[in-house]
């Protein structure tokens, strides 16, 4: 059924196979404005079908992908683009996780470096096999001293 439907649409807009594939790819990136996160190629409502027909006609008229995307974005807002341009707030959304990852990595690196530099001091202070707990090492050292004294 979808094949028949798409064939009908193809013949209506008289697209070459390359143009039809381009229209399909553009449709994949356009959100159906009345659905939840569904591209107009998958949505079955009338508005999506009309939008898809519009895309095919614009492809047939020789408009570029960018022109078609901006046509829909100017009318429905960037919301209609399933792959919105990475600029403005969009850039912040894309960049923030990377920035957070970088900052977290830096903090982790500093923490690990501080611990490895601190480790030798602890091993000299503690004589036993657990060099990571300076308090325990201190207790052991002093209890041993106390035991020897008694």
């Amino acid at each position: 059924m979808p094949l028949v439907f798409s064939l009908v649409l193809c013949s209506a807009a008289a697209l070459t196979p390359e143009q039809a594939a381009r229209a399909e790819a553009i449709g994949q990136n356009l959100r159906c404005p009345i659905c939840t996160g569904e591209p107009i190629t998958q949505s079955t409502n009338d508005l999506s079908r009309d939008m898809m027909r519009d895309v095919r006609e614009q492809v047939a008229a020789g408009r570029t992908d960018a022109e078609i995307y901006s046509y829909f974005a100017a009318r429905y807002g960037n919301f209609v683009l399933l792959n919105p341009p990475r600029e403005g707030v969009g850039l912040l959304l894309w960049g923030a996780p990377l920035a957070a990852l970088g900052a977290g990595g830096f903090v982790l690196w500093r923490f690990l470096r501080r611990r490895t530099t601190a480790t030798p001091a602890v091993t000299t202070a503690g004589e036993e096999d657990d060099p990571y707990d300076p308090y325990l090492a201190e207790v052991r050292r002093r209890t041993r001293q106390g035991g020897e004294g008694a």
Partner: protein
Amino acid sequence: MTDLSPLSNQTPTPAPLWRRLLPPVLAAGLVAVLGAALLSPSRNATDGGPLVGKPAPDFTLESLDGAQVSLAALRGRPVVLNFWASWCGPCREEAPLFRELSEQRGGEGGLAILGILFQENKEENARAFIREYALAYPNLRDPGAKAAINYGLTGIPETVFIDKAGTIRHVDRGGLSRERLNVGLEKIGVKGI
């Protein structure tokens, strides 16, 4: 005896100021972002949109009476565009307002009101609707919803208020009340009803 006092004397050095302030500042920042997101107009707002302030997309459509109606020909007059369909409940509720508006503010050189049918499957139903509410302004067919898409329509009813210069000044989604209609009219320099 065992004396642990030297250890307890090692009072931890207080964390630097920036480190103590960092968590509350981060939390405050998150709350501010959340607040801004909540208070900013959402996509579901009943008015506004990306077309407000932009030139109204032109169209030439055929009315149910067979006349060709072009938006460009109405330049110089304020225009109210109402997208509707007979199957839409809120469209019925607001229809009397449009009749009243066309009676009071319509006419030569005054406000132009245009209805545009949206996904009207049976034209006869639209004609019955027009008769029922005595709508005396052109109602246009929009094959393929071309004009609807050109105006970024997502549902009906939707009303677009265009000023004399052909710029969209206000868009209202959902059924109009008298107050909401007057808000749009005021923005295109037309006295409310």
